[in-house]
Structures are given as structure tokens and as C-alpha cells.
């Protein structure tokens, strides 16, 4: 499965005197199973790129094609279903549902997909075990540390077996130890589940462990290594 981006543009305030080109005529291919870091200074367009790849933000022009599915041509309902079934999200602030337990948070997207209760529970418990939170499965996010919450977020993103995970600065709020633990987990899941990870980061400890690093500046691809 491939993500193929052609001439992708995102312009904020296009009608104004000073339009902002967050992503500017970008061409990019990402293959299934890659572990990709998108790096660049603040305001370089990393988050905007991830949002467009994840189908949660509209493009100004260009195409985003995921395995033959053109995201820019999908209507809202199709896009929601595509995201639900193919893309997982990890956010900088974890964004777990505070009223649900760790287990319920992980089960959540699977339940949205309509899977049976028992299947959701089994998968969620399996993932929580993988991220080392088997004992904390009945705790609510407020009862977990930042690192533990982000591990729950990783498990949640992986639960519906998405083909891509978009992680927007997943380690920004974590200390060094938690960052290392989270990267270990993400790497092992990338290997075991074959899930493609695309994450934006400032953190050199993170991008040093990426297999591919895309350097972004002023909305344009500066380097792809």
C-alpha cells in the first residue's frame, strides 16, 4: 500500500494580501511498512501535511492517493469511513477520552467499526499488553502518567489494524525515558504489525531512529533521506 502525493498545496487565507502556503506543490511517495519522520522547524507545515495525509484537513490543490483511493475526491462520509478503517492517529496531547478507561479507549474505534464486544476486548487487551499497560487497563487517563497515556493512544491508534499511523509530535510532552519507551513500542509494532508510521517531530532522539527522514521547510520538501 502506497501513499502517493502529487502537487499537494495548502494555502491559508488564499484571498488575502498575504496568503500562507503551509504546503507548497509537494510530491511524495510513502510505501507500506515505512517508519518515516517528518522534521522541520515550527511553522514549516509538518502538521498540515500529516492532517492532509490523514484526510482530516482539506487540500487547496493537488492529490493524495492512498492505494488507489483518491482522498481529495471523497465526500465527508466516505472520508470518515476511510479514516476509521485505514488510518490511526496519535496526537501530541494524547487526546484520550477522559471518561473511558484505558481499555475502553483502545476498544473505541473498533466498536465504531462495528466489531463484536468480545473481539474488541481481546484485541484491546492484547495491545495494552504490548505497550506494557496490562495492569492499568481499568484506569482512566487522569490516573495515568503522560507516557502511559501516550502508550494507550498508540494502542488505540493500532486497535482497528490501520495501514497508516499519523503521529503528530507524539513525544513532545514526554520525558527522555518515556520517549525511548514509546519509540521502542512504535518500532516493534511497525515490525510486528507492518503498520506504516509517519510522525512529525522536532526531537533528534526520535528522528534518529526513523528509517526515513523527510525534512520540511516553508511548506516544501528540502530533503528526503
Amino acid at each position, binding site marked *: 500500500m502506497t501513499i502517493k502525493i502529487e502537487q499537494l498545496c495548502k494555502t491559508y487565507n488564499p484571498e488575502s494580501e498575504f496568503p500562507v502556503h503551509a504546503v507548497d506543490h509537494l510530491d511524495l511517495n510513502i510505501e507500506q511498512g515505512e517508519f518515516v519522520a517528518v522534521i522541520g522547524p515550527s511553522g514549516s507545515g509538518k502538521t498540515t501535511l500529516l*492532517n492532509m495525509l*490523514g484526510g*482530516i*484537513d*482539506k487540500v487547496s490543490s493537488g492529490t493524495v492517493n492512498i492505494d488507489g483511493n483518491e482522498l481529495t475526491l471523497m465526500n*465527508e*462520509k466516505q472520508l*470518515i*469511513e476511510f*479514516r*476509521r*478503517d485505514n488510518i*490511526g*492517529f496519535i*496526537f501530541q496531547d494524547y*487526546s484520550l*477520552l*477522559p*471518561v*473511558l478507561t484505558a481499555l*475502553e479507549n483502545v476498544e*473505541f*474505534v473498533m*466498536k*465504531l*467499526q462495528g466489531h463484536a464486544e468480545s473481539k474488541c476486548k481481546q484485541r484491546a487487551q492484547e495491545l495494552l499488553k504490548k505497550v506494557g499497560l496490562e495492569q492499568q487497563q481499568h484506569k482512566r487517563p487522569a490516573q495515568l502518567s503522560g507516557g502511559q497515556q501516550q502508550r494507550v493512544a498508540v494502542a*488505540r491508534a493500532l486497535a*482497528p489494524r490501520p495501514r497508516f499511523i499519523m503521529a503528530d509530535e507524539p513525544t513532545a510532552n514526554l520525558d527522555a525515558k518515556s520517549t525511548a519507551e514509546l519509540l521502542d513500542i512504535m518500532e516493534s509494532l511497525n515490525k510486528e504489525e507492518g503498520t506504516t508510521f509517519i510522525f512529525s517531530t522536532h526531537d533528534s532522539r526520535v528522528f534518529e531512529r526513523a528509517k526515513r527522514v523527510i525534512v520540511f521547510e516553508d511548506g516544501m520538501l528540502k530533503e528526503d533521506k
Partner: protein
Amino acid sequence: MLVKLAWRNVWRNKLRTSIMLGAMIFGAVGVMLMMGFMNGIINNLVKNTIQWQTSHIQIHQKNYALNPDINLVIDNEAEITKWLEQAPQVKAWTSRTLVNGMIASARSTRGIQVNGIDLESEPKITPIAEHILEGEWLDDKGRNPILVSQKTADRLKLRVGSKIVLTFTDTTGDVTGAAFRVRGIFKTSSSTFDDANVYVRKTDIQQLGQVYFDHEIAILLHAEDQVSAFSDQLNKTFSAPSLNNHSKSNNIVQDWLQLQPLLSTMMSSMDAGNQIILIIFVAAMGFGIINILLMSVFERTREFGVLMAVGMKKTNIRRLIILESGFIGGVGAGLGVFCSIFFIYVLNQTGIPLDTMAEGLNAFGVDSTLYPSVSLNDYVTVFTMVWLVSIFSGLYPAHQIIKKNPVEAMAEKQ
């Protein structure tokens, strides 16, 4: 899953939800008590009107209501009373000879309606015999005994044993009269009624007035819900040509609502008043819920953005918010109605003493102790309206949220 999430979201900010529920409970109890109080007044008024004045149904000569002339007696009375004796719906009936005249004591004179009553059947229709404050109920003994109200007794300075003179026009058009002796003094819940009525034996008044038929038949049924149908049946039966003389009956059959059109209007007005109070309460509560929900929803805008991003359909987000408002409304309305049932039950047992307003209430025929009552239908109406308004209140905040796309929603600060 949505239900679980919505329920937990409702209790996310316990203080805020509790304040909202408290407002709903107090509001609902207030409205129900107000409705109960109004219903209590109306029920009491209806009960007293039926007990003392109209019974369920009355039969008169059809011109009697316009001109209560002594000669306007009921047509075919014997036939009607025979029919009433056999009707299973009838609990009791009585016939009365009524004349309008003057009552005079040594001190004063007043206009009065003289009710010539049947001593056996009248107590089955009106509770007059149980409302004698001084003296005794009428019997066959003695010459011309009379029952006067306490109010009349006070005005005419009468006591038990006092002598009064009744004068009125007889069937020949001559003024007639006789001396009566006060046998008892009564008091009903209506000072207006007391002011205008005295009771004598039917035989005495008939002899004096040379009238040997009655002006009024009062009927009490076993069940109030049969009144309308029975009244129609009576009308059909006795508006047809009479069995004996084949002429059309001149009688009119009226139920208590027709006899007291003012009461009917008051009942409609009270109903309308109750509805207006309910609508005002529900509208105010609706705005309160919208306000709470707007706060609750907008502070979670980012969270809704995340839900959209991970694949929750906008219809489900709308459902989630409406479920939350439905839960608040259901719990608030449920507790409100539950507390109302409790308070109204307690007040219905103890009564609300309104002694300071007794004089004013009695003028309208209302007792000075009120027993609020709310029908099951009213409880269901209040619960349903509060609940539905709560659900509708969720629509606006839900609409505001689902207008946003995930990125816009997630860009909102929490």
C-alpha cells in the same frame, strides 16, 4: 457505547450537572405544586357545587331557568321519577319545590330562595343534614320548621327557636305567607349559597303556595364519567312525546357544567393557566439546558474533533450530544416528578390550611383547607415536555459542533 459515553459525559462535571438538575427539580416541583393548588381549588369548587347546588344532573321546566315562576313545574314528573328509580346509573335523586320570597324577622327582611325538600331523599343528595351547627335537622314533627344558614341567622338576628315569616307569590298570583320557627342553623362552604337559601319541608311550602308538583329534580350518579351520556339519555327519553298525552315534554335536562357555565369557564381558564405556566417553565428550563450544554459541548470541541478524526460519524456525534441532553432531561424530569408526587401526596394528606383567606374562598364556594391534586396525566405531560425540550435543547449545540471539520475542532483550545 454511545449510551455509556453520553452517561459518563453527563457526570463529568458533577457540580454543574447537579446544579442543572437541582434547578429542574425545583422548577418541576414548583410547577406541579402550582398545578396541584389550582386543581385543588377547582376540584373543591366542583365537589361543593355538585354536593350543594347542582348534583350531577337537574331537570327543570325549560322556562324555569329564565323565569323561576312558581307555576313552571316539571312536566310528567311521575313518569320521570319512575324511570329514575329503575335506572342503574342513578345513585340517588330528589325533587324540590322552590319558591322565591322574602324572609322577615323582628329585626330585618331579606330576599331568599325557599327550598321545599323531601326529608328522606334530600340527605342522600346534599350533605345538609351533616352541616347543622345548631339545632336539628327537619322532621315531621311540629308546625312549619325551617333551616336557615348561619349567615342569614346573623343578618336577621335569629337563634334556634326564633320565629320568622316567609312571604311569596302563590300559583294564583296572590301573596301568601306563614310563620316558621327556626329548627336548625346550617353552614356550607359557600357563603353566597348560604346567603340565598333556606330549607323547609316540601309539604309545607306546597300547601302554602298551592303548588302540588316540583320545580326541580336533582340526580346523583354512581360515576361522574357517566354524567354526559346519562344526561343525553334523559334528554332523548323525555324530549320525546310523553307516553300519556303524546305531547312533547317541556322539560330541560342539564348537567352540572351546563347549570354552572361560569364554573365551566373557570375550569377551562385554569387549564389554560396551567398550560401557560408549564410552557413558561419548560421554555425557561430549555434555555437553561441549552446554556449548560453549550458550555459542556464547547469546552469539549477539541475532543469532538478527535472523535471525528478517529472515524466517528457526525450523525453519531449529534446522537451523543442529544443523548447527553436526553439524560439530563430524563433524570431532571424524573426526579422532579418523583419529588412532586411526594410533596403532593403529603399535602393531599395534610391539606393546606388557608384560614386567612377563608372568607374570600367561601364566597366562591371553596373550602378553607385545600387538598392539592395532580392527575397522572399531568405528571406524564410534565415529564414528557421537560424530557422532549431537553432533547431538542441538544440539537443546537450539536449542530454547532458538527459544522466544524476535525482540524477546525481540534484547533480549539480546551
